[in-house]
């Protein structure tokens, strides 16, 4: 079990609780998270720790919803953008291997649903 998801999950809880308090909510039912492919976060681990750290809080039992954002490369030759995968980062359109990563670093709490 990767260790860093524990501290990350605690951060998620702190952020959610703070915003719930500001909204005068008495229960958090759902958290909408956006996670980029390049953010090195494992959903299952966050879920595992979530069940532990949210216990005895108003977020206990809340559903975690993960929106995955793929890593994106942009070809420097033809401008085509394509998902990060494969062995050599070659552009699937023109075959050039000169590309830069332009997305996939996201990791944020987008919104919460409260009662």
């Amino acid at each position, binding site marked *: 079990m*990767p*260790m*860093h998801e524990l*501290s*990350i999950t605690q*951060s*998620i809880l*702190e*952020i*959610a609780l703070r*915003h*719930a308090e*500001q*909204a005068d*909510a008495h229960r958090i039912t759902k958290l909408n*998270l956006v996670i980029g492919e*390049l*953010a*090195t*976060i494992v959903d299952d681990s966050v879920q595992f720790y979530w069940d532990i750290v949210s216990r005895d809080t108003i977020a206990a039992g809340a559903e975690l919803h993960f929106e995955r954002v793929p*890593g994106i*490369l942009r070809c420097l030759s033809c401008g085509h953008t394509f998902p*990060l995968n494969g*062995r*050599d*980062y070659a552009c699937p359109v023109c075959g050039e*291997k*000169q*590309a*830069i*990563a332009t997305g996939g*670093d996201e*990791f*944020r*709490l*987008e*919104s*919460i*649903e*409260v*009662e």
Partner: protein
Amino acid sequence: MQVPVVEQIFSANDQLAAANRARLDAARVFAVNVMASPGAGKTSLITRTVEMLNGDFRIGAVDGDIATTIDADRIAALGVPVVQINTGGACHLDAPMLQSALPQLPLEEIDLLIVENVGNLVCPASFKLGAHRSVLIASVPEGDDKPYKYPVMYRGVDAVVLNKMDVMTAFEFDVDYFRHGVEVLNPGLAFFSLSCKTGEGLNGWLVWLRDEIKEFRQQF
């Protein structure tokens, strides 16, 4: 009811990292965060660097490990102040850990602070510490496909050091393929191939580090 949040999960750590940076700046300490997988040569590069630069700069070190003081002892043997952080199982250093280590160092008497992160090619990338530059050490035995398999680590660093060039003939390592993967993820970053064991190639790394320190000092 839906409540918009739009808050970065790492914001708490990032804020502390900024506070660390401010503290280092105030003491005119240039800090480097050294990351790599276990066994790539973090401690070797650090001890080499201390040996070569110790006359010109006052150096201090922070050493992160899950357990033991083996690495910290190697660095302390060179006569520089070292603070050991045992993470107690955590796979990376984070900004709060560096924050608690800084008061244990004579910052006013240090020009260059080298932070040795926990050996790990995944987690340290996500946790900013507040250092001025981040360096990733790769080594030939790890294989030339690592930028493709661990893209995040290569994405956020300022320099990549390819270590253990002395064993190149024993491995099938395509330097061009390796560099291409690095360049895609992190265009224009500094790249050095060297051997801590033989000393070959070390000079390029040392010149870069000297220049970075010089540039850092010019802003004050």
